[in-house]
């Protein structure tokens, strides 16, 4: 093939071994599946490998997963290349994934992308020179009620306006972790400007309910 990761400018690592800790984790994951069906653990193991390798999957990591599961290597490449959330190219420390599918787009995701480009000085799909940020566009992140949505690492930043985006990027650059969730302070997916029906339930009561549910 053009190897799953052949179209990037950086060198492929030549070896990958699971850390002791991750190997334990991998074994726990494999143990969830019946004997002989360990190939089912392919996807979670690829995720473990990707996390260990700083957010992307070199070919050697896919090979390591294939060998661990006794699968033909090509079968693992098929899986890894099928799903966009496995990064076949090296990504920066902060992988910024702006959702640009219709609901987010209607709510201004173009501005978010534009802000990121301007602020970071990179185009979509590129990584900053210092290796801190990679900007990416993704298809629906599944949080349309809080559009526009930006995923950074494992965190979702919702209801993002350009000025929020700037603040988030600044904070990340300083090494802080900005508060994830709605940037406008909205509670989960409640209507902007407070409830429009069932007003008898006050916001305070709703908060209490949510708090209970969280417990």
């Amino acid at each position, binding site marked *: *093939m*053009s*190897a799953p990761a052949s179209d990037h400018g950086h060198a492929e690592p030549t070896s990958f071994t699971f850390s002791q800790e991750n190997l334990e984790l991998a074994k726990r994951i494999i143990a969830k599946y019946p004997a002989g069906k360990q190939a089912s653990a392919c996807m979670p193991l690829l995720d473990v490998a990707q996390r260990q390798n700083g957010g992307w999957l070199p070919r050697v990591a896919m090979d390591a997963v294939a060998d661990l599961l006794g699968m*033909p290597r*090509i*079968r693992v*490449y*098929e899986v890894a*290349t*099928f799903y966009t959330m496995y990064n076949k190219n090296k990504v920066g420390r902060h992988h910024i994934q702006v959702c640009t599918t219709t609901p987010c787009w209607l709510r201004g995701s173009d501005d978010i992308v534009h802000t990121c480009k301007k602020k970071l000085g990179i185009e979509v799909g590129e990584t900053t020179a210092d290796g801190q940020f990679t900007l990416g566009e993704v298809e629906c992140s599944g949080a349309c009620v809080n559009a526009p949505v930006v995923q950074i690492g494992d965190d979702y930043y919702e209801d993002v306006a350009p000025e929020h985006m700037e603040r988030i990027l600044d904070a990340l650059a300083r090494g802080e972790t900005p508060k994830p969730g709605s940037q406008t302070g909205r509670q989960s997916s409640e209507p902007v400007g407070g409830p429009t029906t069932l007003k008898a339930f006050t916001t305070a009561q709703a908060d209490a309910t949510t708090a209970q549910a969280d417990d």
Partner: protein
Amino acid sequence: MPKLTIDGIEIEVEPGTSILQACEQLGIEIPRFCYHERLSVPANCRMCLVEMERAPKPVASCAMPCGDGMVVRTNSETVLKARKGVMEFLLINHPLDCPICDQGGECDLQDQAMAYGFDRGRYGENKRAVEDKYMGPVIKTIMTRCIHCTRCIRFINEVAGVPDVGAVYRGEHMEITTFVEKAIGSELSGNLADVCPVGALTHKPYAFTARPWELRKTETVDVLDAVGSNIRVDARGPEVMRVLPRVNDDINEEWLSDKSRYSYDGLKRQRLDRPYIRQNGKLVPASWTEAFTAIAARLKGLSGNRIAAISGDLVDVEAQFALKELLSRLGSTSLDCRQDGARFDTSVRAGYLFNSGIAGIEKADVILLVGTNPRWEGTLVNARIRKRYLAGGVTIASIGEQRDLTYPYSVIGSGPETLQQLVDGSHAFSETLRAAKNPMVIVGMGAFQRPDGLAVQAAARLVGEVYGMFRDDWSGFNVLHTAAARVGGIEAGFVPGEGGRDIHGILDGASKGEIDFVYLLGADEIDTAKLGNAFVVYQGHHGDAGAHRADVILPGAAYTEKNAVYVNTEGRPQLARLAVFPPGEAREDWKIVRALSEVLGTTLPFDTHGQLRQRLMAANPIFGAVGEMTPASWAPFGAQGPMDTAPFVTPITNFYMTDPISRASVTMANCTEALVGPAQERTGTHG
């Protein structure tokens, strides 16, 4: 049994039959790309759509099992429209390069586009282009043409058992690829180009050489191994342009090994196209008369016990029979067709045949391989074992070397002592064999090519007897030969006669000066240094080891150049047919022997091929049943005796070069370099 109506015709089919198969039974043609009758059904090309009553939309007939009371229409407006839509989508990204495509003229997409294609494109965007992949020395790829039917992936995973090909990325970006530009390590890779319905995978050696409509097609059999695969030789003028498999469910299904398919360029190189005589140590061209006179001069006054003959791996039955007749007229009984030095009893047919038949493998539930690497010795036998493995419920074990046979098996021993343990029941595997309903043993030449070959044969027979492999309803004792000529030679009686020497005796005698005249009938795999000072006649088609040593060379015909009988390892006589004429002055082999007999003053009693066949049938009636397996009756064979403890070793060290034709082939040299060389370096078994 479901009963359904297709296009107004009622049909009752076996449960589990798909609508497409039912249509085929009715003779209704359903277009398809991804469906292949010998592969799994992915239903991803959508070309086989049909209309079914009470179904909301057209259904893929290849994946829809027949149900009772279904009403199916295959030729309605809806169906036509649906298929046209599918075709239009397929053609969106398919290049319009049919004039320079090797598949042109025999392309499924081209043919079906004639029926379902739109006469102009409505797609204004850019077509996609895909990087070509490297798939080894025999498969050429033009991946832009790929329509993602995934037949190649399924073939290589299921039939070949070498999971090297897959589909990466998704949607419009999907690409078929080997993992990271690696040659496909399968001996069946040529079939990828056969299953490919478009021109994405084509045969590299055939690239840009011919068009299907200018080829003369001859249905014949392959002789590069003992399987006897049915092939079609496509020739243009005097040249073989390609070799394709022919369907024969008893033997090769519809596959062909790469050696059988791509060795044909060896037919054009190193050919012996005229007689030669050695004069002052050098071979000089001669006429037929001169060559025959030289032989007659040497044979004059020579007593029969100083004359011997050895036949090679690619020789047809007629030539061996004729030479045997000639030798017996000269008073010699020293003749052997086992040039590889194998020792086995040839007196009982059951002792040297693949008695169950290759298709019989599918009925076995325990398979024991003895001293054989079927992947290299009989690639399609191995493919059949893999097919049996995929069907489930089979235990496979081997006595011999550990090799990758494309299916899991256990090595239960390395040499004859394991056979002995199986006979007396002391081996752990005995239990498995005893519990088996249809146990099978496959003995390879690695078990016979050793001084204790006869004892090994007897031990293998005892294993068969102990575990019930010789029954009226089941014969599980099988011998896998490596040479197409071998069984035919034995059946024609080309084995040592009364008081005659076998191959070892002939070579010993020649080196000691006890034999003065050796007739090599296409025999090249012998140690020619052992021929000593004997006068050597080589009759064959390639300038290989035998011709190198010869004093007189008689140019013969290769398997594509004669009408002849070959008998495969099952004991099934099959007809090879003349596709092109032998080059230069070369002649069909039996005619050479017949002509020589006349010069020697002992004219053989046949003037035509028909008369020779008659005599052959009279000598051994199995030659009358062409294409049939004549069951072998059971009688004790082999000779019980002490056995060496040395492990069994497979006789083939390089699958791609086993005979004069494949050794002369450039394609086979490329395969050796790409596939065998690196593998041997990896395992460290070379040198």
